[in-house]
Protein backbone atom coordinates (compact mmCIF):
# COMPACT_ATOMS: atom_id res chain seq x y z
CA UNK A 1 0.00 0.00 0.00
CA UNK A 2 2.75 2.47 0.98
CA UNK A 3 4.85 3.76 -1.82
CA UNK A 4 6.89 6.72 -0.65
CA UNK A 5 7.50 8.44 2.71
CA UNK A 6 8.88 11.93 3.21
CA UNK A 7 10.08 12.86 6.69
CA UNK A 8 11.20 16.29 7.88
CA UNK A 9 12.32 17.11 11.41
CA UNK A 10 13.26 20.57 12.64
CA UNK A 11 13.60 22.55 15.86
CA UNK A 12 14.44 20.90 19.15
CA UNK A 13 17.18 21.86 21.57
CA UNK A 14 19.75 21.78 18.79
CA UNK A 15 17.73 23.24 15.92
CA UNK A 16 19.29 20.74 13.54
CA UNK A 17 17.17 19.52 10.61
CA UNK A 18 16.86 15.88 9.65
CA UNK A 19 15.16 14.89 6.42
CA UNK A 20 14.77 11.67 4.49
CA UNK A 21 12.60 10.17 1.78
CA UNK A 22 12.07 6.44 1.65
CA UNK A 23 10.84 4.44 -1.31
CA UNK A 24 9.41 1.26 0.11
CA UNK A 25 10.07 -0.60 -3.13
CA UNK A 26 13.77 -0.15 -2.49
CA UNK A 27 13.74 -1.58 1.02
CA UNK A 28 14.58 -5.17 1.79
CA UNK A 29 11.39 -7.11 2.59
CA UNK A 30 12.09 -7.29 6.34
CA UNK A 31 12.55 -3.55 6.59
CA UNK A 32 9.54 -2.82 4.42
CA UNK A 33 7.51 -5.07 6.68
CA UNK A 34 8.80 -3.31 9.82
CA UNK A 35 7.96 0.09 8.37
CA UNK A 36 4.49 -1.03 7.35
CA UNK A 37 3.96 -2.34 10.88
CA UNK A 38 4.96 1.01 12.41
CA UNK A 39 2.61 2.86 10.06
CA UNK A 40 -0.22 0.49 10.96
CA UNK A 41 0.51 0.86 14.68
CA UNK A 42 0.44 4.64 14.29
CA UNK A 43 -2.93 4.39 12.50
CA UNK A 44 -1.36 7.00 10.31
CA UNK A 45 -4.12 7.26 7.74
CA UNK A 46 -6.73 7.89 10.43
CA UNK A 47 -4.79 10.72 12.07
CA UNK A 48 -5.90 14.30 11.65
CA UNK A 49 -3.16 16.61 10.44
CA UNK A 50 -2.16 18.97 13.25
CA UNK A 51 -0.82 22.15 11.71
CA UNK A 52 -1.28 24.24 14.86
CA UNK A 53 1.93 25.14 16.66
CA UNK A 54 1.90 24.62 20.42
CA UNK A 55 0.82 27.69 22.35
CA UNK A 56 3.44 27.13 25.03
CA UNK A 57 6.76 25.42 25.41
CA UNK A 58 10.19 25.60 23.80
CA UNK A 59 12.75 23.34 22.13
CA UNK A 60 10.12 20.86 20.97
CA UNK A 61 10.89 19.01 17.74
CA UNK A 62 8.57 19.60 14.80
CA UNK A 63 7.78 16.81 12.36
CA UNK A 64 6.20 16.59 8.94
CA UNK A 65 5.48 13.15 7.57
CA UNK A 66 3.94 12.68 4.15
CA UNK A 67 3.06 9.25 2.82
CA UNK A 68 2.14 8.63 -0.79
CA UNK A 69 0.37 5.36 -1.42
CA UNK A 70 0.53 3.27 -4.54
CA UNK A 71 -3.00 4.36 -5.45
CA UNK A 72 -1.67 7.93 -5.74
CA UNK A 73 -3.19 9.22 -2.51
CA UNK A 74 -1.19 11.52 -0.27
CA UNK A 75 -1.53 11.80 3.52
CA UNK A 76 0.36 14.32 5.65
CA UNK A 77 0.87 14.76 9.36
CA UNK A 78 2.32 17.91 10.92
CA UNK A 79 3.05 17.46 14.57
CA UNK A 80 5.46 18.22 17.40
CA UNK A 81 6.77 16.60 20.57
CA UNK A 82 4.05 18.48 22.43
CA UNK A 83 1.13 17.51 20.19
CA UNK A 84 2.19 14.12 18.84
CA UNK A 85 -0.22 11.20 19.32
CA UNK A 86 1.85 8.69 21.36
CA UNK A 87 1.28 5.81 18.96
CA UNK A 88 3.17 7.79 16.27
CA UNK A 89 6.28 7.88 18.48
CA UNK A 90 7.83 4.59 17.30
CA UNK A 91 7.32 5.55 13.64
CA UNK A 92 8.98 8.93 14.20
CA UNK A 93 11.84 7.26 16.06
CA UNK A 94 12.38 4.92 13.11
CA UNK A 95 12.30 7.74 10.56
CA UNK A 96 14.49 10.04 12.67
CA UNK A 97 17.17 7.40 13.12
CA UNK A 98 17.02 6.51 9.46
CA UNK A 99 17.46 10.20 8.59
CA UNK A 100 20.41 10.58 10.97
CA UNK A 101 22.13 7.48 9.59
CA UNK A 102 21.55 8.74 6.05
CA UNK A 103 23.07 12.10 6.99
CA UNK A 104 26.13 10.41 8.45
CA UNK A 105 26.94 8.61 5.19
Amino acid at each position, binding site marked *: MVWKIYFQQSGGLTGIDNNISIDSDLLVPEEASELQHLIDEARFFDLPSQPEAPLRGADYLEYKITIETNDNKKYSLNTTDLTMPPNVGPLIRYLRQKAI*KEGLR
Partner: protein
Amino acid sequence: MKPSSSCCFIIPPDLLYQIIKEGTPEQKEKALRTLEVSESLRTQRSILAGIRGGGPLKVAGHQQKRRIVYDAHHSYDIFSLPGEPKRYEENTQDIGDKDLDNCFHNTGIVYDFYKEVFMRNSMDDNGMAMHSSIHFGVDFDNALWTGNQMVYGDGSDLFLKKGLVASNLTVTAHELTHGVTDYEANLVYRGQPGALNEHMSDVFAIMCDQWFNKHRVDESLWLIGKDMLVEGQALRSLKEPGTSYPSDKQISHMQDYHTGMRIHFSSGIPNKAFYVTCKEIGNNSYSWEKAGKIWYVALRDRLREYSKFQDAADITFEIGGLIFGKGSKEQNAVHKGWEAVGIMPREGPDITKVIGKKRKQDIL
Protein backbone atom coordinates in the same frame (compact mmCIF):
# COMPACT_ATOMS: atom_id res chain seq x y z
CA MET B 1 11.31 24.21 58.07
CA LYS B 2 8.46 23.16 55.81
CA PRO B 3 7.17 25.32 52.98
CA SER B 4 3.93 27.09 53.67
CA SER B 5 0.93 27.58 51.47
CA SER B 6 -1.87 30.09 51.60
CA CYS B 7 -4.33 27.70 49.92
CA CYS B 8 -6.98 25.99 51.98
CA PHE B 9 -7.13 22.23 51.63
CA ILE B 10 -8.52 19.49 53.81
CA ILE B 11 -5.06 18.02 54.36
CA PRO B 12 -2.59 20.63 55.64
CA PRO B 13 0.55 21.04 53.48
CA ASP B 14 2.77 20.10 56.42
CA LEU B 15 1.06 16.74 56.66
CA LEU B 16 1.38 16.22 52.91
CA TYR B 17 5.12 16.84 53.14
CA GLN B 18 5.31 14.42 56.05
CA ILE B 19 3.60 11.77 53.89
CA ILE B 20 5.96 12.48 50.98
CA LYS B 21 8.86 11.97 53.34
CA GLU B 22 7.71 8.91 55.24
CA GLY B 23 4.72 7.33 53.45
CA THR B 24 4.51 4.30 51.21
CA PRO B 25 5.19 4.89 47.48
CA GLU B 26 1.45 5.02 46.81
CA GLN B 27 0.86 7.47 49.64
CA LYS B 28 3.77 9.61 48.43
CA GLU B 29 2.35 9.81 44.94
CA LYS B 30 -1.12 10.76 46.16
CA ALA B 31 0.30 13.41 48.47
CA LEU B 32 2.39 14.78 45.62
CA ARG B 33 -0.63 15.00 43.33
CA THR B 34 -2.52 16.89 46.01
CA LEU B 35 0.31 19.38 46.32
CA GLU B 36 0.38 19.75 42.55
CA VAL B 37 -3.30 20.65 42.51
CA SER B 38 -2.85 23.19 45.28
CA GLU B 39 0.06 24.79 43.44
CA SER B 40 -1.85 24.88 40.17
CA LEU B 41 -4.84 26.54 41.84
CA ARG B 42 -2.62 29.07 43.57
CA THR B 43 -1.03 30.00 40.25
CA GLN B 44 -4.43 30.27 38.57
CA ARG B 45 -5.70 32.55 41.32
CA SER B 46 -2.68 34.75 40.92
CA ILE B 47 -3.07 34.94 37.14
CA LEU B 48 -6.79 35.64 37.39
CA ALA B 49 -6.16 38.40 39.88
CA GLY B 50 -3.81 40.02 37.39
CA ILE B 51 -6.21 39.61 34.45
CA ARG B 52 -9.07 41.13 36.42
CA GLY B 53 -7.03 44.26 36.90
CA GLY B 54 -7.12 44.16 40.64
CA GLY B 55 -3.37 44.35 40.89
CA PRO B 56 -1.12 41.50 41.80
CA LEU B 57 -2.57 39.25 44.45
CA LYS B 58 -0.03 38.73 47.19
CA VAL B 59 0.19 34.99 47.43
CA ALA B 60 2.61 33.30 49.76
CA GLY B 61 5.03 31.16 47.79
CA HIS B 62 7.53 28.58 48.88
CA GLN B 63 10.80 29.94 50.13
CA GLN B 64 12.88 26.83 49.50
CA LYS B 65 13.78 25.04 46.31
CA ARG B 66 11.49 22.20 45.41
CA ARG B 67 12.70 19.69 42.87
CA ILE B 68 10.78 16.64 41.73
CA VAL B 69 12.25 14.29 39.12
CA TYR B 70 10.03 11.73 37.43
CA ASP B 71 10.67 8.67 35.31
CA ALA B 72 8.67 8.74 32.06
CA HIS B 73 9.53 5.05 31.53
CA HIS B 74 10.23 5.66 27.83
CA SER B 75 6.67 6.72 27.09
CA TYR B 76 6.07 8.92 24.04
CA ASP B 77 2.87 10.23 25.57
CA ILE B 78 3.48 13.86 26.49
CA PHE B 79 0.02 13.96 28.00
CA SER B 80 0.92 11.25 30.51
CA LEU B 81 3.74 13.32 31.97
CA PRO B 82 5.24 13.95 34.43
CA GLY B 83 5.36 10.16 34.98
CA GLU B 84 6.37 8.26 38.08
CA PRO B 85 7.80 10.52 40.80
CA LYS B 86 11.20 9.18 41.78
CA ARG B 87 13.03 11.84 43.74
CA TYR B 88 11.78 14.72 45.86
CA GLU B 89 13.52 17.58 47.60
CA GLU B 90 13.41 15.58 50.80
CA ASN B 91 15.48 12.72 49.31
CA THR B 92 19.04 13.54 50.29
CA GLN B 93 20.52 10.27 49.05
CA ASP B 94 21.11 9.47 45.38
CA ILE B 95 18.73 6.78 44.18
CA GLY B 96 21.17 5.14 41.78
CA ASP B 97 19.81 6.29 38.41
CA LYS B 98 22.72 8.43 37.20
CA ASP B 99 20.64 10.52 34.78
CA LEU B 100 17.97 11.09 37.36
CA ASP B 101 20.37 12.01 40.16
CA ASN B 102 22.39 14.31 37.88
CA CYS B 103 19.22 16.00 36.68
CA PHE B 104 18.14 16.49 40.29
CA HIS B 105 21.49 17.99 41.31
CA ASN B 106 21.76 20.21 38.23
CA THR B 107 18.25 21.55 38.74
CA GLY B 108 19.33 22.50 42.25
CA ILE B 109 22.41 24.28 40.92
CA VAL B 110 20.28 26.31 38.51
CA TYR B 111 17.89 27.23 41.31
CA ASP B 112 20.82 28.29 43.54
CA PHE B 113 22.32 30.33 40.68
CA TYR B 114 19.13 32.32 40.19
CA LYS B 115 18.61 32.68 43.93
CA GLU B 116 22.14 33.75 44.86
CA VAL B 117 22.98 35.89 41.84
CA PHE B 118 19.60 37.44 40.96
CA MET B 119 17.62 36.85 44.17
CA ARG B 120 15.07 34.98 42.10
CA ASN B 121 13.02 32.28 43.75
CA SER B 122 12.48 29.68 40.99
CA MET B 123 10.94 30.17 37.57
CA ASP B 124 7.98 32.24 38.71
CA ASP B 125 10.00 34.03 41.43
CA ASN B 126 7.44 32.64 43.85
CA GLY B 127 8.94 29.27 44.74
CA MET B 128 7.36 27.24 41.94
CA ALA B 129 8.27 23.54 42.09
CA MET B 130 10.66 22.43 39.35
CA HIS B 131 9.32 19.29 37.69
CA SER B 132 11.59 17.25 35.41
CA SER B 133 10.77 14.04 33.56
CA ILE B 134 13.62 11.92 32.30
CA HIS B 135 13.73 8.79 30.10
CA PHE B 136 11.12 10.26 27.75
CA GLY B 137 10.57 8.21 24.59
CA VAL B 138 13.07 5.71 23.23
CA ASP B 139 16.48 6.99 22.15
CA PHE B 140 14.93 10.45 22.17
CA ASP B 141 17.49 13.05 21.03
CA ASN B 142 16.09 16.12 22.72
CA ALA B 143 15.31 18.08 25.85
CA LEU B 144 12.44 20.52 26.01
CA TRP B 145 10.27 22.81 28.08
CA THR B 146 6.55 22.03 27.86
CA GLY B 147 5.30 25.25 29.42
CA ASN B 148 5.00 23.48 32.77
CA GLN B 149 8.06 21.30 33.16
CA MET B 150 11.38 20.05 31.75
CA VAL B 151 11.50 16.85 29.68
CA TYR B 152 14.65 14.89 28.79
CA GLY B 153 15.29 12.04 26.40
CA ASP B 154 18.13 9.56 26.76
CA GLY B 155 19.92 10.31 23.49
CA SER B 156 20.45 7.75 20.76
CA ASP B 157 24.23 7.53 20.36
CA LEU B 158 23.55 8.44 16.74
CA PHE B 159 23.09 12.16 17.25
CA LEU B 160 23.23 12.94 20.98
CA LYS B 161 25.33 10.71 23.18
CA LYS B 162 23.37 8.45 25.48
CA GLY B 163 23.21 9.37 29.13
CA LEU B 164 24.27 13.00 28.73
CA VAL B 165 21.06 14.86 27.87
CA ALA B 166 19.59 14.92 31.37
CA SER B 167 23.03 15.19 32.98
CA ASN B 168 24.29 18.37 31.35
CA LEU B 169 24.11 21.48 33.52
CA THR B 170 23.86 23.91 30.58
CA VAL B 171 20.95 21.94 29.10
CA THR B 172 19.03 22.03 32.38
CA ALA B 173 19.79 25.73 32.85
CA HIS B 174 18.71 26.39 29.25
CA GLU B 175 15.37 24.62 29.68
CA LEU B 176 14.65 26.07 33.11
CA THR B 177 15.35 29.55 31.78
CA HIS B 178 12.59 29.04 29.22
CA GLY B 179 10.37 28.84 32.28
CA VAL B 180 11.78 32.11 33.63
CA THR B 181 11.20 33.76 30.26
CA ASP B 182 7.61 32.51 30.21
CA TYR B 183 6.99 34.27 33.51
CA GLU B 184 8.79 37.48 32.57
CA ALA B 185 9.27 38.76 29.00
CA ASN B 186 7.12 35.90 27.63
CA LEU B 187 8.84 36.26 24.25
CA VAL B 188 6.81 34.57 21.51
CA TYR B 189 8.54 31.52 20.09
CA ARG B 190 9.07 32.63 16.51
CA GLY B 191 10.99 35.24 14.55
CA GLN B 192 13.35 37.58 16.39
CA PRO B 193 11.38 37.36 19.67
CA GLY B 194 11.81 33.57 19.46
CA ALA B 195 15.53 33.97 18.82
CA LEU B 196 15.76 36.27 21.86
CA ASN B 197 13.91 33.60 23.86
CA GLU B 198 16.55 31.06 22.81
CA HIS B 199 19.30 33.61 23.42
CA MET B 200 18.18 34.21 27.01
CA SER B 201 18.21 30.47 27.66
CA ASP B 202 21.75 30.19 26.29
CA VAL B 203 23.02 33.28 28.12
CA PHE B 204 21.70 32.23 31.53
CA ALA B 205 22.81 28.65 30.90
CA ILE B 206 26.41 29.67 30.21
CA MET B 207 26.41 32.08 33.15
CA CYS B 208 25.12 29.32 35.42
CA ASP B 209 27.90 27.03 34.20
CA GLN B 210 30.52 29.74 34.72
CA TRP B 211 29.12 30.62 38.16
CA PHE B 212 29.14 26.99 39.28
CA ASN B 213 32.70 26.45 38.02
CA LYS B 214 33.87 29.92 39.11
CA HIS B 215 35.08 30.61 35.59
CA ARG B 216 36.09 34.09 34.59
CA VAL B 217 35.29 35.35 31.08
CA ASP B 218 38.56 34.14 29.58
CA GLU B 219 38.46 30.79 31.41
CA SER B 220 35.12 29.67 29.98
CA LEU B 221 34.78 27.79 26.71
CA TRP B 222 31.38 29.47 26.18
CA LEU B 223 29.84 26.22 24.97
CA ILE B 224 26.28 24.99 25.48
CA GLY B 225 25.98 21.20 25.66
CA LYS B 226 29.71 20.50 25.54
CA ASP B 227 30.62 16.95 24.41
CA MET B 228 26.98 15.93 23.98
CA LEU B 229 27.05 15.48 20.23
CA VAL B 230 28.33 12.32 18.58
CA GLU B 231 29.91 14.58 15.94
CA GLY B 232 31.00 18.02 17.14
CA GLN B 233 32.22 19.73 20.26
CA ALA B 234 28.92 21.17 21.52
CA LEU B 235 25.39 22.26 20.60
CA ARG B 236 26.29 25.93 20.40
CA SER B 237 29.14 28.36 20.94
CA LEU B 238 28.44 31.86 22.22
CA LYS B 239 32.02 32.84 21.46
CA GLU B 240 32.02 31.64 17.86
CA PRO B 241 28.46 30.88 16.73
CA GLY B 242 28.38 28.47 13.79
CA THR B 243 31.50 26.51 14.74
CA SER B 244 30.18 23.89 17.17
CA TYR B 245 29.68 21.00 14.76
CA PRO B 246 30.32 20.38 11.06
CA SER B 247 26.93 21.62 9.76
CA ASP B 248 26.36 24.33 12.41
CA LYS B 249 24.25 27.06 10.77
CA GLN B 250 24.18 29.55 13.61
CA ILE B 251 25.01 33.08 12.50
CA SER B 252 26.69 35.91 14.40
CA HIS B 253 25.98 39.04 12.36
CA MET B 254 22.90 40.84 11.04
CA GLN B 255 24.28 40.77 7.51
CA ASP B 256 23.56 37.01 7.48
CA TYR B 257 20.08 37.32 8.96
CA HIS B 258 16.93 36.87 6.90
CA THR B 259 13.27 36.79 7.82
CA GLY B 260 12.01 33.30 8.53
CA MET B 261 15.37 32.05 9.76
CA ARG B 262 15.22 29.30 12.38
CA ILE B 263 15.38 30.77 15.84
CA HIS B 264 18.17 28.44 17.01
CA PHE B 265 20.32 29.79 14.17
CA SER B 266 19.57 33.52 14.44
CA SER B 267 19.99 33.44 18.24
CA GLY B 268 23.73 33.42 17.51
CA ILE B 269 23.49 37.18 16.87
CA PRO B 270 22.49 38.25 20.40
CA ASN B 271 24.61 35.40 21.84
CA LYS B 272 27.69 36.88 20.24
CA ALA B 273 26.68 40.38 21.40
CA PHE B 274 26.56 39.11 24.98
CA TYR B 275 29.94 37.39 24.66
CA VAL B 276 31.59 40.55 23.26
CA THR B 277 29.98 42.62 26.02
CA CYS B 278 31.50 40.34 28.65
CA LYS B 279 34.90 40.48 26.95
CA GLU B 280 34.77 44.27 26.82
CA ILE B 281 33.91 44.44 30.51
CA GLY B 282 37.00 42.40 31.21
CA ASN B 283 38.64 39.03 30.65
CA ASN B 284 39.14 38.69 34.39
CA SER B 285 35.57 39.57 35.25
CA TYR B 286 32.68 37.25 36.01
CA SER B 287 29.92 37.38 33.40
CA TRP B 288 27.07 37.22 35.89
CA GLU B 289 28.25 40.16 37.96
CA LYS B 290 27.79 42.94 35.41
CA ALA B 291 26.63 41.86 31.95
CA GLY B 292 24.41 39.24 33.61
CA LYS B 293 22.69 41.84 35.76
CA ILE B 294 22.01 44.02 32.73
CA TRP B 295 20.55 41.09 30.79
CA TYR B 296 18.51 39.91 33.78
CA VAL B 297 16.86 43.29 34.28
CA ALA B 298 16.14 43.40 30.55
CA LEU B 299 14.49 39.97 30.64
CA ARG B 300 12.58 40.66 33.82
CA ASP B 301 11.42 44.21 33.32
CA ARG B 302 11.78 45.50 29.79
CA LEU B 303 11.62 42.87 27.06
CA ARG B 304 8.11 41.85 26.09
CA GLU B 305 6.33 39.33 23.84
CA TYR B 306 7.26 40.89 20.50
CA SER B 307 10.64 42.46 21.33
CA LYS B 308 13.21 42.24 18.54
CA PHE B 309 17.00 42.42 18.39
CA GLN B 310 17.03 46.23 18.10
CA ASP B 311 14.79 46.47 21.18
CA ALA B 312 17.15 44.19 23.10
CA ALA B 313 20.13 46.33 22.05
CA ASP B 314 18.41 49.59 23.04
CA ILE B 315 17.15 48.19 26.34
CA THR B 316 20.41 46.59 27.48
CA PHE B 317 22.31 49.74 26.53
CA GLU B 318 19.95 51.87 28.59
CA ILE B 319 20.02 49.49 31.54
CA GLY B 320 23.82 49.43 31.39
CA GLY B 321 23.78 53.21 31.74
CA LEU B 322 21.25 53.11 34.53
CA ILE B 323 23.05 50.52 36.64
CA PHE B 324 26.67 51.49 36.00
CA GLY B 325 26.33 55.08 34.84
CA LYS B 326 26.02 56.77 31.47
CA GLY B 327 29.26 56.49 29.55
CA SER B 328 30.58 53.88 31.97
CA LYS B 329 32.88 51.09 30.85
CA GLU B 330 29.99 48.66 31.25
CA GLN B 331 27.55 50.67 29.15
CA ASN B 332 30.19 51.14 26.46
CA ALA B 333 30.81 47.39 26.55
CA VAL B 334 27.14 46.74 25.81
CA HIS B 335 27.37 49.15 22.87
CA LYS B 336 30.44 47.37 21.52
CA GLY B 337 28.75 44.02 21.96
CA TRP B 338 25.79 44.92 19.77
CA GLU B 339 27.94 46.89 17.35
CA ALA B 340 30.01 43.75 16.76
CA VAL B 341 26.94 41.96 15.40
CA GLY B 342 25.74 44.85 13.24
CA ILE B 343 23.19 46.47 15.56
CA MET B 344 23.67 50.02 16.87
CA PRO B 345 21.98 50.63 20.23
CA ARG B 346 19.88 53.80 20.28
CA GLU B 347 19.49 56.27 23.10
CA GLY B 348 16.06 56.00 24.67
CA PRO B 349 14.01 57.60 27.42
CA ASP B 350 15.14 57.31 31.00
CA ILE B 351 13.95 53.91 32.22
CA THR B 352 14.38 54.52 35.93
CA LYS B 353 10.64 54.77 36.48
CA VAL B 354 9.94 51.57 34.62
CA ILE B 355 12.30 49.25 36.41
CA GLY B 356 11.89 51.13 39.66
CA LYS B 357 8.43 49.66 39.93
CA LYS B 358 9.76 46.18 40.19
CA ARG B 359 12.24 45.41 42.91
CA LYS B 360 14.91 47.70 41.56
CA GLN B 361 16.71 47.43 44.87
CA ASP B 362 16.89 43.67 44.53
CA ILE B 363 19.21 43.73 41.59
CA LEU B 364 21.05 47.03 41.59
